[in-house]
């Protein structure tokens, strides 16, 4: 028994998140109850920044950068403020309308901009953010323009008005605790795994059934909702709105809070917002009051601290605390589980049939006249030297690339239009260049493979309604790891794996989607002899359990020893197709491989 188990609670990220969220709430509550008015206002400001910044952190975890997040704060603030002040809408309804408006704005902006790649997205959101605050200034008749909008009524339910600043601070931090804890929990849920996969490699995520475009939009809307919530609460707390707190500076400050605190975790945002406020307070006290220097020295010192912290910890302050934060783990279940294909194929059916396909890239003929098929309970090898066109064939077979000529039938029908539907067809694959999420554990990487069979979404992930499904998923993940004999590494970060191990993790991940047809792209490259033996026996075992395999591989001997049929490609053309013994003896094949 390690010393950890002396604690009554098992140290897991979920427990740690709850404890941290609760502690932050209690701490904030104490300040709210006892601190001077100045501190209460500061507390509210930090809480509001944290709320919006948490949303931005979720965006960053999904691999998106927004430089215009304050625009959604402004939307929430102004919609609810104007509704409550000028149109007499009850404040609670106005609050909801404000959040809904932010969500709507997020959906519209997201739908337009999320197709932008690389650095275009931050540029577009930057422009939208600046345009929004410019529009507030320009639309003076409605928004009060640069001089602002005053006398917003207090938040009230019926006659019960929330006029007490201290109570307001408690409300804000309750939300911070709930959403902070929830988003932290979300990270390690079905949706959280998909979000992490989205950042690493959207194409890989789609193979396992993630609708990347939709998930990206959902994340963007959630971030907009959190920003909008922060904005509406701002309106009802300060009861005065002006464009200044929602400008570019505000957007950049949110990003600073995320990066400074640590963009890997929602609590990083809270930590960042708090650290920045604390730093500002310290600077004001020491630099301005004690040393009597101007505000610009404060700005300079703040900038210097920001630069120095990020040079030291590019992952933010959170990365410095990671050592004490528990690593995600799920204990091995007692019961045993079988990983057979979800649907048994009927004998004689062709799972994959490729006929006469050709592919031209520009003027270059990459492939010409390739035909083969993979039947039920069959392992088919696709071999050929580097540059023979194996990968292209493979991508055409899975519908990732459309052939210039010829037809592909997967389970008797054309490949699905959307890659994310492939897994529902009973197809899974591994990748020639390993695509796993480096910062997640081996077990989580494997568990992601079951995405298509799960149903629980964002809300259940945040608040723990997904317990049963998660337990089942991890039971399968453990089983898959046992099958590839990597269960000893279940809780290691995937980045620590050697190449061979990482390939086997990919196989395990593909297995738990319970495919009828498994496509393996050079699974043995980088494997040691023992691991290769393991792979071969695994393939035979899969075949017995009813999974067919298409195997692209360089190791001829490995291929010859486990396949039923071999398709040999050379320079984009089919060299021959046959049973292993025929191929092994063929002079052309040997020449193609070792050279002449």
């Amino acid at each position, binding site marked *: 028994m390690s010393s950890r188990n002396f604690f009554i609670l098992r140290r897991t990220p979920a427990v740690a998140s709850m404890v941290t969220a609760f502690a932050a709430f209690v701490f904030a509550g104490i300040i709210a109850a006892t601190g001077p008015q100045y501190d209460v206002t500061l507390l509210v400001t930090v809480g509001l920044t944290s709320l919006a910044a948490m949303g931005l952190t979720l965006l960053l975890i999904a691999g998106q950068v927004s430089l215009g997040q304050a625009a959604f704060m402004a939307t929430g603030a102004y919609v609810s403020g104007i509704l409550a002040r000028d149109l007499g809408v009850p404040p609670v309804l106005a609050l909801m309308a404000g959040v809904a408006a932010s969500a709507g704005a997020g959906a519209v902006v997201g739908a*337009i901009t999320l197709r932008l790649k690389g650095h275009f997205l931050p540029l577009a959101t930057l422009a939208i953010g600046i345009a929004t605050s410019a529009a507030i200034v320009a639309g003076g008749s409605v928004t009060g323009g640069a001089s602002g909008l005053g006398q917003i009524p207090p938040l009230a339910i019926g006659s019960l008005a929330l006029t007490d600043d201290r109570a307001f601070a408690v409300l804000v931090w309750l939300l911070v605790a709930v959403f902070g804890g929830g988003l932290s929990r979300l990270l390690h849920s079905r949706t959280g795994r998909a979000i992490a996969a989205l950042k690493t490699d959207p194409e890989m995520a789609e193979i396992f059934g993630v609708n990347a475009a939709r998930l990206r939009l959902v994340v963007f809307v959630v971030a907009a909702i959190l920003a909008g919530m922060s904005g509406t609460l701002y309106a009802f707390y300060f009861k005065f709105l002006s464009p200044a707190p929602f400008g570019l500076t505000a957007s950049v400050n949110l990003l600073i809070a995320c990066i400074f605190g640590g963009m890997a975790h929602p609590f990083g945002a809270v930590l960042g917002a708090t650290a920045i406020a604390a730093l500002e307070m310290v600077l004001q006290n020491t630099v301005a009051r004690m040393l009597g220097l101007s505000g610009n020295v404060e700005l300079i010192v703040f900038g210097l601290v920001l630069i120095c912290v990020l040079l030291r910890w590019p992952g933010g302050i959170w990365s410095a605390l990671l050592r004490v934060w528990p690593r995600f783990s799920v204990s091995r279940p007692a019961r045993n589980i079988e990983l057979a294909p979800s649907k048994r194929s009927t004998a004689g059916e062709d799972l994959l049939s490729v006929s006469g396909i050709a592919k031209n890239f520009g003027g270059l003929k990459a492939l010409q006249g390739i035909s083969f098929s993979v039947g039920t309970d069959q392992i088919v090898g696709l071999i050929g030297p580097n540059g023979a066109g194996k990968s292209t064939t493979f991508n055409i077979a899975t519908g990732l690339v459309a052939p210039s000529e010829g037809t592909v039938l997967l389970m008797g029908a054309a490949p699905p239009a959307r890659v994310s539907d492939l897994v529902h067809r009973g197809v899974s694959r591994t990748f020639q260049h390993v695509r796993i999420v480096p910062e997640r554990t081996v077990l989580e990487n494997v568990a992601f493979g079951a995405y298509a069979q799960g149903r629980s979404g964002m809300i259940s992930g945040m608040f723990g309604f997904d317990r049963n499904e998660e337990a089942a998923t991890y039971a399968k993940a453990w089983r898959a790891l046992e099958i590839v004999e990597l269960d000893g590494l279940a809780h290691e970060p995937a980045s620590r794996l050697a190449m061979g191990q990482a390939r086997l993790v990919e196989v395990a991940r593909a297995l738990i989607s319970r495919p009828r047809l498994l496509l393996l792209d050079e699974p043995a490259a980088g494997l040691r002899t023992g691991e290769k033996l393991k792979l071969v026996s695994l393939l035979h075992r899969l075949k017995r359990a009813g999974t067919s395999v298409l195997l692209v591989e360089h190791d001829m001997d490995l291929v010859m020893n486990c396949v039923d049929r071999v398709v040999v490609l050379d320079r984009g053309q089919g060299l021959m197709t046959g049973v292993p013994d025929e191929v092994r003896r063929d002079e052309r094949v040997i020449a193609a491989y070792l050279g002449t």
Partner: protein
Amino acid sequence: MLDTLSFLLIDGITNGAVYGLLALSLIVIYTVTRVVNIAQGEYVTLGALSFASALSGSFNLLSGLVAAGLAAFALRDVADKHLGASARIRVLLIRSAWIAGVLATAFAASRFPGSYWLAVLASLAATASLGTLTYRLTVEPVSGASPVVLLIVSVGVYMVLHGAAVLIWGAEPRSVPPVVEGGVSLGPVFIAYQSLWICGIAVLAMGGLYAFSERTLMGQALQATAVNRVGAQLCGIPVRLAGQLSFAIGAGFSALSGLLLAPLITANYDMGLPIGLKGFVAAALGGIVEYPTALIGVMLVGLTESFSAFQVSAFRDVIVFLMVIPILLWRNAVRPPEAHEH
């Protein structure tokens, strides 16, 4: 009507020329170092303010600070254990000459107040050198970090430079005389000489940069680093030096735009940010990787700005900034940026 139109046209083109220098700065820095440089506008401020102070005959404090920073790095470079004896002497000589140049121009400018070209030289030498220092202090140590971390670091740089500008020169705006007073009247239209001057110098500077990157080996090396970093390393191009060079060019160009603009709007500590942002818009139109498209972009931004200011003045900025979205969408469809490198 016609004279209003021509007035707006000239105004737009003048602004466009200024934004153009900014856009080129942003592009050269982004392509070579992957830094989306939020602090870019501050070089505009520093250029204008150090120019103004040099004109008034006071010693440029910025030059002194920069020289000190350069000296610190020079000591470190000379002490590099991988250097041979002759290389060490060469490094020492080059660095000394560089530091001397920064100090000498500042000193000369303070001895001859009102000397326009000396003040320009002193200002550019100080700001361009400051660019290289910024690179070595804040980019080189985290060159492998994700672009968003580099961006936030540049926000930190913005804070330091912004605060430093006020600390050195105060918050009072300084009026700067134009190079040549007055202007010409072309029919009903009056063109200030300074407008012509701005356009002329901007075109010269851009032409110079073009010639540098197309005709010289060092300029081509800079392009090569932007296109393919690994390839550049394999050619023996020192990518860190390329990074420094890009920051020097970026800072110098921005400072140039600041000191050209100063006579029209006075030199003040707050002038940089809005100009920097407009430069961003213009650069964004070119996807911040392409020079020629960015140049069309700057003219578009300048003209849209002055015309919409006249037509619907309140919504000027809304229009200018929203213009980015459709153009980015179009670029994304036609030529998407390469996926970010690991």
